[in-house]
């Protein structure tokens, strides 16, 4: 583990834990702007989580401990993920060679529990969502890993902190085409893993078409609060991977770094909002094609890099 100035690390970590739900507010506001609506308040997700934490629960009599453990393990996984991903230039609190593989595996653990909890209800809606989730993620995983392979090759580094610590303007000048391809691949994975359009529509209430939302139909109260907060953190982690590459300026000084990074995250949320406003959800049959496309983009990026 790389020793870091503890205060700054804690500050950046706190920013992640505090600001993550804001991304959903920004996405919804952007969509509202496009649709000419006023939209929910920017802080709506905070209100939702706060309210859910004050409620009791209604659970199905079919369920077991797996159902109750699902949201808890899911949230713990992404919260640990926050410890692995560097934010705004400083190394992450837990950093070691191969840590990105552990990050991918933590997302898999989260999925394992979320899907098991969904199947625990015995509801066919949730079975449907679970079945789609495992299919899409199985294809997103290689895309993410090959993208990391490109970054590792370019930076000769095997930990996230070193990798993103070295992404600089010079690197962009050397290998701009492959970076752009990797960013495209990562953005596709980001949208798929966070259950956004074109993969999934978080706002629809027709269970037959949903993926992620339908898996958590039976959760309520604090459990649902954990799930919402967990999905916010997951979006923050995967978003940070993208923003860390796009904004390669580090160590100007601490505050501008953090400021730039947060602006980057918010702009990413705006981009998601724009995508959601101008696109429709893909037919489920076409989703795998897009994900295989993301693997293809990442492999192409690697080939460009090797050729250069």
């Amino acid at each position, binding site marked *: 583990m790389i020793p870091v100035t503890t205060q700054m690390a804690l500050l950046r970590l706190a920013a992640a834990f505090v600001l993550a739900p804001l991304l959903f507010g920004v996405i919804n506001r952007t969509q509202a702007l496009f649709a000419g609506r006023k939209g929910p308040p920017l802080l709506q997700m905070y209100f939702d989580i706060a309210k859910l934490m004050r409620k009791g629960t209604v659970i199905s009599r079919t369920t077991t401990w*797996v159902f109750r453990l699902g949201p808890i393990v899911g949230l713990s996984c992404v919260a640990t993920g926050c410890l692995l991903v560097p934010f705004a230039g400083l190394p992450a609190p837990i950093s*070691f060679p*191969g840590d990105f593989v552990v990050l991918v*595996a933590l997302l*898999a653990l989260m999925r*394992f529990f979320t899907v098991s909890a969904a199947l625990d209800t015995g*509801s066919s809606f949730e079975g*449907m969502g679970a079945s789609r989730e495992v299919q899409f993620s199985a294809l997103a995983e290689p895309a*993410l890993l090959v993208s990391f392979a490109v970054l590792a090759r370019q930076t000769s580094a095997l930990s996230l902190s070193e990798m993103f610590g070295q992404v600089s303007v010079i690197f962009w000048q050397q290998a701009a085409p492959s970076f752009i391809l990797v960013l495209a691949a990562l953005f596709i994975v980001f949208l798929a893993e966070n259950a956004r359009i074109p993969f999934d529509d978080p706002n629809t209430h027709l269970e037959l078409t949903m993926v992620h939302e339908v898996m958590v139909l039976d959760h309520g109260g604090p459990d649902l609060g954990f799930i919402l907060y967990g999905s916010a953190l997951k979006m923050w982690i995967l978003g940070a991977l993208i923003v860390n590459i796009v904004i390669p300026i580090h160590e100007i000084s601490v505050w501008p770094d953090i400021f730039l990074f947060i602006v980057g995250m918010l702009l990413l949320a705006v981009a998601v909002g724009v995508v959601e406003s101008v696109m429709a959800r893909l037919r489920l049959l076409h989703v795998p094609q897009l994900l295989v496309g993301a693997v293809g983009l990442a492999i192409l990026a690697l080939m460009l890099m090797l050729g250069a």
Partner: protein
Amino acid sequence: MMTFFLSSVSLLMATGLAALFSRKGSLIAVAGCILAAILGLIPVLASLFTSAAFTLRIGWNVPFGAFSLEIDPLSAFFLLPVFLLSPLAALYGQAYLQNQGGHAKSWFFWNSLVASMAVLVAARNAVLFLVAWEIMSLCSFFLVVCEHRHAESRRAGWIYLVSTHLGTAFIVALFLLLGNSAHSFDFNEFIRSGIVSSPAATLLFFLSVVGFGTKAGFVPFHVWLPEAHPAAPSHVSALMSGVMIKMGIYGLVRTLTFFNAYPFSWAAVLIAVGALSGILGVLFAIAQHDVKRLLAYHSVENIGIITLGLGTGLLGTSLQLPFVAVIGFAGGLLHVLNHAVFKSLLFLGAGAVALRAGPRDMDRLGGLLKRMPRTGIAFFIGAAAIAGVPPLNGFVSELLIFYAGFDGIVAGSVPVVAATVAAVAALGLIGGLAVACFTKVFGIVFLGEPRSREAEQAHEADALMTVPMLVLASLCGIIALASPLILRVFKGILPGLTHLSAAECSFRLDRAAHTLEGFLAAAAAVIVMATALVWARRRLLSGRSQTVVVTWDCGYVKPSASMQYTSSSFAQPLVDLFGSILRTHKHLEAPAGHFPSIGSMRTHTADIFRRLLFDPLFAAVQHALIMGHFLQHGRIHLYVLYIALTLLILLAVKLQ
């Protein structure tokens, strides 16, 4: 030290014989198996921790043979699963078979199987190795056909017997060629004769991949696995899938130590075979409805992961990337131990389900976690471990292989990058699909509502069956926790494979141990946070309403268990996506008319390699052999004439 080993083997044989003749034989045999395992573990652990090799040579009157045994760290590492799992599976099997009506005599074959595997791994002479190999194959055949009253068991046994002997033929050829060039059948002579990479060496490598790959279950030689495992009793499947197929991996690894250098192409072959076995194994597993058949395909997948690790290690050795070599081999070998633990756990769990709930078809099970809580939690841990999610042991070995792969991507030249990216992407896809497959198994079998009356009336298995499962489940966690320490045992094993000194190996292993420590820190963070959240949830909910109702069903009035998602429906998107490979047959009887009453759908996924490769091949062979039919009349005096003619010809040849 070898005294312990010899007494362990003789104890196994003696108590096995007792099972044939005594009425209390099965108890004696199981007790013997447990005692023998404890005796056997002494030299194994001693060799692993001190990197020492213990040897023993006894005279043996077999041409070219020598009763030459040695326990070096590599042998000890493969003996570890033999002695660790056989007593646990035997305890379970004792209770399991009592419920099935005895089969006391099968314990003779069980103990002989364990003894033959022990001798096989320690053998240092090709003839002794082949004798042990053959005893192992035959004993496991008799165990597969344990329930020989079912036609299905007999058919499965037949397929197994044929394929294992086809594999053995390649191994015999391998050892004949090796012995011919070394003028001895001693393994040490094979090493000393220094086979360098050449076309002849590549032929040897090819023979060992096919021969040992048939036992291990490389695609396309895996066809016997999905037949034999469902037919065998569960504790036998556990031992065969957990331990016996690893003998194929051992054979391959041992053969690799005979060579001085490896060409790049061998590594590429192993990575390709590993990726193919891994991906096809898990895809076919997803499409299955029978739990044990599904687990059998998962053995193919995990053998693929092991081979990916070995291939990466070979790649590192052939192109002088020491880190890739050391960590690749270490990851592949560690996965041997890990797979042995969680796969036998899962087979034992599947057996308990079959015994207590009845149907093997997943679509008729469900809700078993409430009815069989201990089996359920053990199975859950096994499923998470085999799916490769942290913090369990399955992930640790995959992390090492990933690490080696990524190091190759960073440090290697273009061909290395191509090979390692292929390995990494394949491993990623396998991991994602394995999560899909095992959430399906656990979710459909243990969660939700029971889908049949048998499942509804299921109850927990005997303590003799659940305790071995719980021990194995805790091993899944313990191996992960101790993984930085376990890595140290590889410094005695890897020099023979990577051609590096022990110091060079242990330097790289320390770097990998650093990564494993980082992983353990992350895993600890997850566990601490989850514990805190469990506590927080309890605090938040204390004193609030916690209503328990039916699952939300869109306001439907009469929900029934048959409305749940089934394993077929859960797997359908993936099965359709890879439909061109899987060739799943659908039998759909659609509801018709204005008042539809009946409708059904069945899917069936046959093995394409069996259907498109082996069935036509064997049909052709049979066709060719029928031409020799005119020699067979069933008249004894003609057969005597054949024998006399053969002897005359042999005499003539000898006299020349």
